[in-house]
């Protein structure tokens, strides 16, 4: 039995007309001799009646001050996929191709017990194989699984896989079923060199490596989830990204050894962040202050990025949505020195807040001759991260220079850089994000990047 996994995202299953087009892809695969396993997302995007966000809003409106229990929240979040799977299976059956719908648990997907962001620990596809052997199509709910039963229970609770969970379901099923291919269907033709909203003529890449697509996904491209790419890479599953609505061949994801070596693959922007540059006292307590700040931010579940150490202190970026929390945790924070009567007060921003002044007054009065110093965090709001994904780019001298010069020539300031094995990222003003993508796309001639 030749198995192909076809995954359809929310925009491919929102309305009957779109589901029909998706169903035609499944029927085509069947006519080519494949036993199709379909994975579906919830119908539509935020705002659609059965989209995950809409379902969660129904819980929140009960009492917005009381967060839903994570277990029940995951049950609610699964409903959109269940509806999609049932509707899709019925459509296929009506079209003459009998199909059976499966929840994630019924499909054998077992996860850890982290609600909202569970990871797949094993897949037992026996029931799916049984149905495939009957000649039926299997339609599986993406984004969900079940965890092992807690002590004393017989059944495990439903879990969800977090962002991009349906892609992860598709890859995991592909690996467990030893599928000939996993095809991720979306509303664009494949993986593109940049967001077409920024670069309208951004080409669709015909071939890309697992590492590159994972890097693109991690750094903001929304076409495929990085966990899906990692599972496919680990199990060497042939992976494609295609459009539900065209016959474009799409993008083939291959292993590094199969790919033509390319210098630059694509460009992304990630998130809205605030950059904080902490100016530390020039003494041996600086590192302890730095550690304490990392620790406190971690305690508040605040993710830090774009790290760097300079002669005056250290810098980090936080998501803009967390900046209020950063301010409330750190601004006015008093750090007593391990060496007696010295105190450091953290000040967020160039102007002292009432909280910071109050702490200073209090310490001045209560601690008498204490040495009170300020750790000022210079803040740069409204930043974003633009990233260039490149294969083996560090093997060449001058790549950093080229990136920085292209941005400088476009008049775009760069506040910090970071890099990985396959990418270089720059922290820039959010208002310049689109121009940065255009400048880098042009400088590295990505418009010529059409074939593998």
């Amino acid at each position: 039995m030749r198995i192909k996994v076809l995954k359809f995202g929310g925009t491919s299953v929102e309305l009957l007309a779109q589901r029909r087009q998706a169903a035609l892809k499944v029927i085509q695969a069947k006519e080519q001799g494949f036993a199709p396993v379909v994975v579906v997302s919830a119908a539509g995007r935020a705002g659609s009646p059965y989209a995950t966000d809409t379902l969660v809003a129904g819980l929140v409106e009960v009492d917005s001050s009381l967060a839903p229990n994570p277990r029940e929240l995951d049950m609610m979040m699964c409903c959109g996929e269940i509806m999609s799977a049932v509707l899709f299976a019925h459509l296929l059956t009506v079209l003459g191709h009998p199909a059976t719908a499966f929840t994630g648990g019924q499909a054998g997907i077992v996860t850890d017990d982290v609600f909202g962001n569970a990871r797949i620990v094993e897949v037992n596809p026996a029931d799916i194989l049984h149905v495939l052997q009957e000649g039926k199509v299997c339609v599986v709910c993406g984004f969900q699984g079940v965890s092992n039963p807690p002590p004393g229970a017989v059944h495990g609770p439903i879990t969800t896989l977090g962002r991009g969970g349906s892609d992860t379901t598709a890859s995991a099923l592909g690996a467990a079923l030893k599928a000939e291919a996993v095809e991720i269907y979306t509303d664009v033709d494949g993986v593109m060199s940049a967001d077409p909203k920024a670069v309208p003529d951004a080409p669709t890449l015909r071939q890309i490596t697992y590492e590159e697509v994972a890097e693109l996904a991690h750094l903001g491209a929304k076409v495929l989830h990085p966990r899906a790419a990692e599972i496919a890479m680990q199990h060497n599953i042939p992976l494609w990204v295609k459009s539900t609505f065209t016959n474009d061949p799409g993008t083939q994801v291959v292993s590094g050894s199969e790919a033509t070596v390319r210098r630059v693959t694509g460009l992304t922007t990630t998130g809205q962040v605030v950059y904080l540059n902490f100016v530390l006292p020039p003494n041996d307590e600086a590192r302890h202050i730095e550690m304490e700040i990392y620790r406190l931010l971690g305690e508040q579940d605040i993710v830090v990025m774009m790290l760097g150490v300079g002669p005056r202190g250290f810098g980090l970026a936080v998501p803009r949505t967390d900046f209020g929390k950063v301010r409330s945790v750190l601004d006015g924070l008093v750090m007593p020195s391990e060496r007696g009567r010295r105190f450091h007060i953290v000040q967020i921003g160039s102007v002292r807040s009432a909280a910071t002044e109050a702490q200073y007054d209090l310490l001045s009065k209560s601690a008498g001759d204490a040495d009170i110093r300020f750790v000022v965090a210079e803040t740069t709001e409204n930043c974003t991260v633009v990233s260039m994904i490149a294969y083996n780019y560090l093997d060449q001298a001058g790549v950093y220079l080229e990136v920085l010069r292209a941005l400088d020539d476009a008049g775009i300031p760069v506040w910090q850089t970071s890099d990985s094995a396959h990418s270089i990222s720059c922290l820039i003003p959010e208002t310049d994000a689109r121009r940065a993508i255009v400048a880098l796309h042009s400088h590295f001639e990505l418009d010529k990047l059409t074939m593998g």
Partner: protein
Amino acid sequence: MSTGSHTSFERRRGVNAVRVRDGLAHLQVVGLPRESLMPSRLAALDRLKQAGIKIDFLKLTSDGFTFVVDEKMASDAAAALVGTEVMATTGRAMLSVHCANIRDEAGIVGKIAESVMASGARIEQVGDSHDCILLVVESDRANDAAARLRADFGLDGDDAH
């Protein structure tokens, strides 16, 4: 085709590998003029490129930038930057602490830094990507730091799945 047997998936949460890359030099270019900071950085980077020196781990600072190179290239790099204030320290190592989806793991940076400092290593530079925290430390402390990280994060050997 599968017979329906169980298959394991996905990397474990948190730190899943610690690696040491030894034999590096850490160079800090300082004192560049504030009024022409980026052009001065570009000019310095251009000189490194002209000298054919591959740099790694570029970080921008308030008055220049820092980077690492192969230790054997440290003097060439310093020579390429003659006329610029450069502090070059050899005998450095890069600790790569790998973690799946690091930017979904709040607090991990602090734990990693705490662990490295507890080993006695001094962190000279730090950087991050989506799946890795990189730290420049003294070479002679690097293996102790790696061992401490592996112990603190429950890794038996170099890698864990």
